[in-house]
């Protein structure tokens, strides 16, 4: 079996008195794409937040051999975990270019950063056209592209994607998922993808977990889950 870049054991999380995750075990293979599927309120977003230290957690989270549970978000990010958050997290008053520059905040390799700017503008030419524009004026799709690019400017080993297809036109979703595949294959960025659009997610991912009210219900290869008629009907809704 391939080594895991992220390994999570008995993960519990809560917001105040409300328990959201009740002991989850999952992992992401190095260079792989794992997807977490589930209905609204199953705890998908919370799982990603837990990995990034944005909620109080119990349990073990190991990233590239280092325990990261209990660490502050900034430190986890600096180890190479980039997060495309729910709601996109755009710096709305800053320009597109400044948003990208912030993505590379922790890096000091100027020439490499300049090359990465060009690479992002290559993936998303729209961002180049609008690079001087205030990011808050971009369309939803453009802001999602910006959020993904900003995360990639970190040169992460692991990319956490929180519903990247949310609110976007199908054509843009296609485009975005194509780019995820390219990034995964050429840059060997591992990904943990949370999605409502199960069909798209299963086509991209190699491994899948089905979440129900804070617990892993079923896990397996993405192919298996996608092929299983009863799972598809009952849980994935397509």
């Amino acid at each position: 079996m391939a080594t895991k870049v992220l390994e999570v054991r008995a993960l519990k999380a809560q917001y105040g008195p409300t328990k959201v995750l009740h002991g989850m075990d999952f992992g992401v293979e190095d260079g792989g794409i794992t997807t977490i599927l589930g209905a609204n309120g199953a705890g998908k977003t919370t799982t990603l937040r837990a990995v990034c230290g944005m909620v109080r957690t119990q349990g073990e989270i190991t990233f590239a051999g280092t325990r990261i549970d209990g660490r502050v978000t900034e430190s986890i990010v600096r180890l190479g975990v980039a997060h495309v958050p729910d709601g996109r997290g755009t710096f709305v008053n800053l320009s597109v270019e400044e948003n990208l520059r912030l993505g590379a905040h922790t890096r000091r390799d100027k020439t490499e950063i300049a090359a990465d700017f060009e690479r992002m503008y290559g993936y998303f030419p729209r961002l180049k056209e609008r690079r001087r524009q205030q990011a808050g004026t971009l369309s939803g799709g453009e802001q999602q592209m910006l959020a993904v690019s900003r995360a990639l400017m970190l040169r992460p080993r692991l990319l956490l994607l929180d519903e990247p297809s949310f609110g976007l036109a199908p054509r843009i979703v296609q485009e975005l998922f194509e780019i995820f595949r390219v990034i995964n294959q050429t840059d060997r960025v591992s990904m943990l993808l949370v999605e409502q659009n199960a069909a798209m997610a299963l086509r991209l991912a190699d491994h899948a977990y089905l979440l129900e009210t804070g617990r892993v219900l079923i896990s397996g290869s993405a192919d298996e889950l996608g092929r299983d008629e009863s799972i598809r009907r009952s849980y994935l809704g397509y």
Partner: protein
Amino acid sequence: MDVLLHQILSGLATGGIYASVALALVMIYQATHLVNFAQGELAMFATYIAWSLIQAGVPYWAAFFLTVAIAFALGVVIERVIVQPVEDKPILAVVIVFIALLVILNSLAGWIFTYTIKPFPSPFPTAPLFGNRYVSSHELGSIGITLVVLALIFVFFRFTPLGLAMRAAAQNPVSSRLVGIRVGWMLALGWGLAAAIGAVAGIMVAPTVFLEPNMMSGILLYAFAAALLGGIDSPGGAVLGGFIVGVLENVVGSIIGTELKLTVALVLIVGVLVIRPSGLFGKVHVTRV
């Protein structure tokens, strides 16, 4: 006409001081959405440090830069030690901490340096520059220094990576953490910068108002008026507001008498809040419901 011109020019000189303090207020406001009531007292305390250094024989400009550095460190320490623990507490708790800070700094200055009014030296010659009749060298010099400070601050925020990170942390702390910015330190740095700007303002105004523990109380009020007039979330607006308030205060003061000068600030504050709460350049906040 001569009198009016003189009033306008010296109004610009004090306006520069108001602009600096207003800018310090806006910087803290942008990061925390709170007005730091202790901003003036911090500046006063820093001015006492400068005075002590000069008394101890340190040359003026060395004392000036040393004080700015000490004020910066003091601002950082105050944020880390006193403000940070109450950061996520209700607004009222934080306001009380700010007011406590105001009272503590004020009493501390009185206790250490006594309430006796002290003269403070000006680095500029006593004879007016270029033999002009309108404006003293100190006024001209302090306008110059204010403009240099404002330009430096502008360049720092606009063109340096650290400045960008500080702007980001103020706007969107959550996303800032997700790109690895240490948001807590950015806030502390903001406090340090605000305190440093305040120190320059205090040192520049001390020769005119004389050094005493309450020297900044009136100035803080004018700075509030300036920040509100320009828009409490607009650094450029605060600076322009400072100069407008300075000139207005002087010109109106010369017409209705100096006793009522402070009223100008209060009328402005109330006027802005009633007619245009977002100020001249502030953003009007529209919330989706």
